[in-house]
């Protein structure tokens, strides 16, 4: 492979150095938000600083043992983002008297422990391919859970949550991973079949009807989420994930065109039929109309307040702890990007988005480098889903597209999202390890499926 480094180096020391920098960013930010509080840097601060340091360095140690060729940039990026999120949530706690910071720290610990467990026990992402159809079943169960009476909870008009023992959890976040595993497994096994058959209409090579099964399945799942869970953001992200994976599997633009047509039709119909979609679109297009602004449900008050906050920050930001991000509803979860934009300014927000861009790029780089089709599909799909999630959230907050309820990965307060995204990181780390590991030491040849050879096609 042309991307293969001539001599593969583990680069774990680079990672350690970058981790120190990343921790300095997160912990430094947290120190700044309580600068004018007394006592400055209280026990909460130290708990958070020490816990975060211990946790991410334990991942670092796990990587040294289990996946020493893993990409050295991914973990520091995620550490910096998670640390910044903790700092901003803590800062908003100070303003509002909430206690979201402690909860977020608990979830961070849980998520990082889960990541360590995945890295330690899974060792090689290709193992997951065995669970292709189990993943499908798990995904279905996870997506249906919130609709089970007595278990599901409707929060702010969306049925995304389940309540277990007083804790809310968003199973859809985990379903993002299991569905990606299913599609990667299914497409890597069947891509030859799908590729070979099909009519050519003009410049487009149309797929056979029976091969369009996965596409329709994806479409149905997305529409199902939109209709039953009433969540536009997740629906859009799932569909984008499927599209990207189908495109990568087949390299056919025709699939993308077909997919876009399908989502356009579905989205248009949904906007016509379901009031919650129409309200979101109206709140986006007519955000500055008084009746839309003042509307109790589906109004634009939240987005407009977020825009005011970001404008208040301007180029340089007010400085951490100096703005009023607490004026924006859901400032520490859905709108955390507006909070960061207000206090860190355009420059700070650019830096954060660049971190995401870098993370996505490293993920895609891992997908390029790995030799198995399953890994390529999974890595590319998960990375692209991350990019889509950023686009849906930040695009919504900056009024590029309608605002939907997706969380900002690693930053926003919310346990399920944190857990799911850290597991995504674990998978990307494993794929990158496989990609950068010298070929001769490649493990478990027996595990590679029949489609592995297909990778060697141009």
């Amino acid at each position, binding site marked *: 492979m042309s991307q293969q480094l001539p001599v593969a180096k583990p680069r774990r020391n680079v990672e350690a150095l970058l981790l120190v920098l990343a921790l300095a960013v997160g912990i430094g930010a947290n120190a700044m938000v309580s600068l004018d509080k007394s006592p400055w840097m209280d026990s909460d601060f130290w708990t958070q600083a020490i816990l975060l340091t211990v946790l991410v360095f334990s991942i670092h140690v796990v990587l040294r043992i289990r996946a020493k060729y893993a990409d050295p940039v991914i973990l520091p990026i995620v550490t910096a983002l998670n640390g910044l999120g903790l700092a901003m949530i803590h800062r908003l706690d100070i303003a509002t008297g909430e206690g979201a910071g402690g909860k977020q720290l608990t979830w961070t610990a849980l998520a990082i422990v889960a990541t360590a467990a995945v890295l330690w026990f899974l060792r090689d992402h290709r193992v997951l391919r065995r669970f292709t159809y189990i993943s499908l079943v798990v995904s279905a169960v996870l997506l249906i859970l919130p609709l089970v009476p007595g278990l599901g909870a409707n929060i702010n008009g969306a049925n995304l949550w389940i309540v277990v023992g007083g804790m809310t959890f968003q199973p859809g976040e985990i379903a993002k991973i299991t569905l990606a595993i299913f599609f990667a497994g299914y497409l890597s096994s069947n891509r030859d079949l799908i590729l070979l058959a099909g009519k050519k209409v003009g410049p487009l090579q149309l797929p056979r009807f029976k091969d369009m099964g996965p596409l329709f399945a994806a479409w149905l799942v997305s529409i199902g989420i939109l209709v039953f869970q009433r969540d536009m953001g997740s629906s859009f992200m799932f569909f984008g994930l499927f599209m990207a994976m189908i495109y990568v599997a*087949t390299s056919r633009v025709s699939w993308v065109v077909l997919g876009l047509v399908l989502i356009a039709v579905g989205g248009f119909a949904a906007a016509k039929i379901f009031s919650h979609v129409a309200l979101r679109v109206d709140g986006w297009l007519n955000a500055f109309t008084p009746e839309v602004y003042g509307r109790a449900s589906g109004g634009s008050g939240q987005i407009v307040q977020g825009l005011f906050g*970001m*404008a208040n920050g301007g180029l340089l930001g007010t400085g951490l702890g100096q703005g009023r991000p607490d004026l924006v509803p859901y400032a520490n979860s859905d709108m955390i990007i507006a909070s960061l934009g207000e206090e860190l300014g355009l420059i700070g927000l650019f830096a954060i988005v660049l971190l995401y861009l870098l993370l996505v790029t490293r993920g895609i780089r891992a997908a390029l480098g790995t030799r198995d089709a399953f890994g390529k599909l999974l890595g590319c799909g998960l990375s692209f889903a991350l990019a889509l999630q950023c*686009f849906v959230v930040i695009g919504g907050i900056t009024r*590029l597209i309608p605002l939907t309820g997706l969380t900002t990965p690693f930053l926003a307060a919310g346990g399920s999202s944190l857990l799911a995204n850290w597991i995504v990181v674990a998978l990307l780390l494993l794929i990158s390890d496989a990609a950068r590991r010298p070929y001769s030491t490649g493990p478990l040849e027996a595990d590679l499926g029949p489609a592995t050879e297909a990778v060697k096609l141009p």
Partner: protein
Amino acid sequence: MNQAIRSTWIVAIALFALIFGGITYVQFFAVDELKNNPWNNRALLQNFCNERGTILVGGQPIAQSVPSTNGDTCKYQRQYNNPLLYSGITGFFSRSFGQTGLEKQMENDLTGNTDQLFYDRVVSMFLGNQPKGASVELTIDPKIQALAYSLIPDGQRGSIVVMNPKTGNIIAMVSKPSYDTNLMASHNPSAVAKAWSQLKDVPGISLYNSAATGDLYSPGSVFKLVDTAAALSSGKYNKDSVLPNPAALPLPGTNVSLPNYLYGGCSAQTEADFAFALEQSCNTPFAHIALDLGQNAIAEQARKFGFGQDAGDQLKLDYTPSVFPSDLNQAQLAQSAVGQFDVKATPLQIALMTAAIANNGVQMKPNLIKALRGPDLRPYDEPKPEVLRTSTTPEISKQITSWMTDVVDKGIASGAQVPGVEVAGKTGTAELGAGGQNNSWFTGFAPANDPQVVVSIVMQDVDIRTGAQLTSPNAKKLIEAVLNK
């Protein structure tokens, strides 16, 4: 497959490019538009929570920012000391109901946002500090202010203005009923809303302006000073002119007549000179003058005293211009000449008119500001006395002064006599409909030969006896207090 992955990456890059574009638009290009949006209350809130400059009288703060107690989203709480005495001057700064009084008019100085503090602003920007506001020192004398407030009985509506006629400096300015401005500045929105709904319906409380500068009252006989000045400056009358003084003047075009003041000594003579007419506050001679000179002459003299005019830029309070009506028929003109019908004046207007007479016909700009001091306590502005307008000639003002001295010495305002000091004064009683209730006025100054202090008092909705007790005798106490300092 790798080519497709690269294409996917390109799409991801495109999505991020859109994000960068969105952020750039919001945080760079649309900043001004978003900041100026009427729904954007961030500037106000920030202002509300910041430390503001102090407003001081006699070296003591009457409005100051103190650090908030724990659990408050704001860093500072505005605190008003002696709010009942100063509510009409400081006004308040409320998160939901806006700013009033000096809190509104001196905004740029109190926030440190004024041009004079540019250097301090730049320094604090580099040090990363919040710019500090200026201190506003007032000309108010806290002792006189407290005395004036105590002279209006609780439950009585009234205003008192005490000022220096030579400089225009306000020495005291109070009104009752008053209210606690701290209630409006609270950081608890529901407590503020409750206070607002209770205060807004209390008669006499003006939450958005000071009663002394913003509320209009019928001036009654005090307005005869305008007629007198108009008469003398017309050239048709002089100090010895003899005026008809019938017990009642039939109003042209109606079947009612304008009677003389019942309680005075007007009925002793059917003809009067100015001295007698003013001493006894007879109505008919002045109605006669107005009908003789015509409404333009009276209106012009009223304008020269400040009716219908603003109060100049030194009075940093919302000011309602006083009114002399236009397009009057003869009956209305006769009534207007004695300060009835639609003639309306603020207590401050009456004080300014009196100050012009005291100051050789020259009206000084009313002024509340003694000094503005930057954060380093160095004064950057100390307003000097400025002429607002010339109301009449020195000769005419001297003549009117001598008649006003008679009013106190031997006339209707004898309650204002101060032993050893010559006091010039004029009372007024404006009827408020048929119920026998009146606005009772006193305006005057002392010493007559070298005026140091002008006192104007109005008590609203009183019977004649109570009104007489609450005006001239209180003026005496205030004049004594100011002169004996």
